[in-house]
């Protein structure tokens, strides 16, 4: 049991490392941040994917993003600057602040509660189940049982 606990701890650490690691390369950051913002022209597209002919906003936004990256600003700082300039809808997903936390945490919490609830429910049902009689020692019992299962499809 202790071994299992230790293994799960190691697993958790590995997962955290995997999730938090990322390349700091500017081109990758440009692409990454470009996917975290929306084009503000009203097309409803991700900034870096906006393909409107003569879009009045996407080129300007992308230029601002390049400038911010060249100034050595951090990801959060850039996102906050865009948010304060264009409003919260410029971010493709809400930041982890105040009420917006609910957007991120409610679905996993609901899933987790569902899993816990299901396990609890199954355990409750299992406890209520009438104990099954011991398997018969009658010759050919297994064959008969398989036949019954086949015919009743259970």
């Amino acid at each position, binding site marked *: 049991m202790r071994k299992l606990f230790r293994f799960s701890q190691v697993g958790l650490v590995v997962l955290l490392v995997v999730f938090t690691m990322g390349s700091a390369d500017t081109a990758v950051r440009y692409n990454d941040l470009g996917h975290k913002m929306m084009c503000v022209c009203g097309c409803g597209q991700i900034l870096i994917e906006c393909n409107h*002919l003569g879009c009045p906003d996407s080129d300007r936004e992308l230029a601002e993003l390049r400038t911010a990256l060249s100034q050595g600003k951090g990801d959060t700082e850039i996102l906050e600057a865009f948010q304060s300039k264009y409003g*919260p809808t410029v971010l*493709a997903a*809400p930041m982890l602040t105040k009420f917006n936390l609910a*957007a991120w945490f409610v679905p996993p919490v*609901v*899933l987790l509660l569902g899993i816990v609830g299901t396990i609890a429910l*199954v355990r409750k049902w299992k406890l*209520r189940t009438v104990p099954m009689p011991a398997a018969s020692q009658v010759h050919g019992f297994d064959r008969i049982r398989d036949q019954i299962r086949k015919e009743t499809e259970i």
Partner: protein
Amino acid sequence: MPAFGSFALLLALALSGYNLFAGAIALRQLATGARGHVSPERLAETARRAGIGSFFAVTCAAFALVWAAFTNDFSVSYILHHSNRALPGPYKFAALWSGQEGSLLLWAWLLAAYGFVLRIRHKVDVKLTAYASTILAGIQIFFLLLVNFAAPPFALVAGTVPQDGFGLNPLLQYPEMVIHPPMLYLGYVGFSVPFAFALGALMMRYPGEKWIHITRRWTMVTWLFLTCGIFLGAHWAYSVLGWGGYWGWDPVENASLMPWLTGTAFLHSVMMQEKRGMMKSWNMWLIFSTFALSILGTLLTRSGLVSSVHAFAESPIGTWFWAFLVIVLAVCLFTFILQRDHLKSEHKLESLVSRESSFLFNNLVLLAACFTVLWGTLFPVISEYVQGNKVTVGAPFYNRVAIPIGLFLLLLTGIGPILAWRSTSFKSIRKNFILPVVSFLVTAVVLIACGVRPWQGQGALYSLMAWSLGAMVVTAVGSEFLRGAGVISRHTGQNLFASIVQLTRRNTRRYGGYIVHFGVVVIFIGLAGSAFNQSQEQELSFKQSMRMGPYRLECQSYSQDTNANYDTEFALLDVYRGDKKITQLAPEKRFYQASQTTSTIVANHSTLAWDLYVVYAGKDPDSGQPIIKVFLNPLVAWIWIGVIIVILGTFVALTPNMTAAFAASRSRVPVGEAPAMAMSKGGD
């Protein structure tokens, strides 16, 4: 013709009204034993005929609208705004569902068509069908009220009638748009039928699970239509929108996904009710929710409640839909509370490690996925209400929250089929799970060795997981086929392929389901490729070339053309792989005169490994040179192949089983031997 259409819609409303009230009175009389001037049987029969009549009336209205489009009758406001003289024939037909009024008429017509089939086949179970028919009439009335009073498709233009119409939205002028919306609507509307049967069965305290047997095909066919509709939409977005992707988590896309998720959960959990008499209340609420989500989907698409790239989503009819949704949920809740004692389970779960619990977890994860999509779709509205400002909930949110749930679901797809009903022993787990787990690990190691580095980003991690889990599911499903086929092969001497065919024909539902699971894996394999998309944009003058992956694109010419419907600018690009020219692509940009809007026509060279996806992004205003945007999208073809496998699997599951006697006469296998082995793990 507009007057004829309007009259047909009013007539349909009157007939549906009669269907509902006469049907309700007849069923009430049958339930209480009370007698009126007319016997309840005869009254119910008139109600049924009125329902059939309403189908013909709505058909006439739909025909009148299509006729108006084909004859360029611009006195009809709807035709004026969604068609023009130069519009090709198929798109004039598509005008029927390109706007709000027309698409609501399509809803009403498809519902009437489903109702027509149901009422024709009423002898399967006369009383239950009478209940279902009456409930369907209630739904039909709502949509007929909408098209008669809230969004009439035959409203006339005030004043002088223009000589030409404003044309169809250019994004809709693509062949798939003639198929995609009706498919999606067939899916949405189709869930009304199992809903009506479920509610009817609950109202009349229908004994046993026969209503599920009766509605099984309806549900599967509906689910298939919705699946096709969703993926046709994805393919349309990929081919037309020109951003290199197929799914943008737009609220309108989400609206179609939600009933699909609950419908999938329903298709799985009804098996528990059929086989073990369990989860009766759960199934009832699953089908109620699926129907409610279909209505909510139409509401989201049509009301403008949430911001969407779909331009047709602005209108005041949301109030009607909210009212209908509240009425539907109230009726469901009231009936459920009244009859809940009828839904007691006959069995309880006996083990956490069993087929039943895998269905339970499968349902849980599907519902969690549905809730996540709903939450993400409605969160901007909630945020505006709570914080006073809207936020955007787009792809980054879903990629982080919904994809892990999807991967968990993929895992269950592999685990579920190899668990036994009631309880799975440790020995059985060891025997059945070793190979899939080994397959998972080997695939993960091979992929890492091939350069998929999960520590280099979320996309790579998800892809690695999707492919490794995919290998696990394929191994699990494949070993199920091989084990059963092996027994048949040993006894008959048939080759393995023939044995697999025979095994599948003996239990089409079980093995059809496995084929569907296999298709889902193939889709996941394709989806996981998106983590490795590449793109670049370049100005490309005559004879200049650009590289993308193993390809070189050389500009041969760029030109303009014009026809009655649109002006077009395009580039002709020769595609080389090494020194060999493999194809020529012609991406273009169209300018539609009637609507004064532009549209992209993507050129795509698709292989099993990747798609070379080329977009004509326009001309540089200074140099006058064409700007070409090229994407290299890995594995996209597998998504469409996976969908075809899902369709095939569903068809197999819909096919009746080969009878045991027929199978025995063909194979000389002792009847039931192969299935008997399978039965030790359950029949599905």
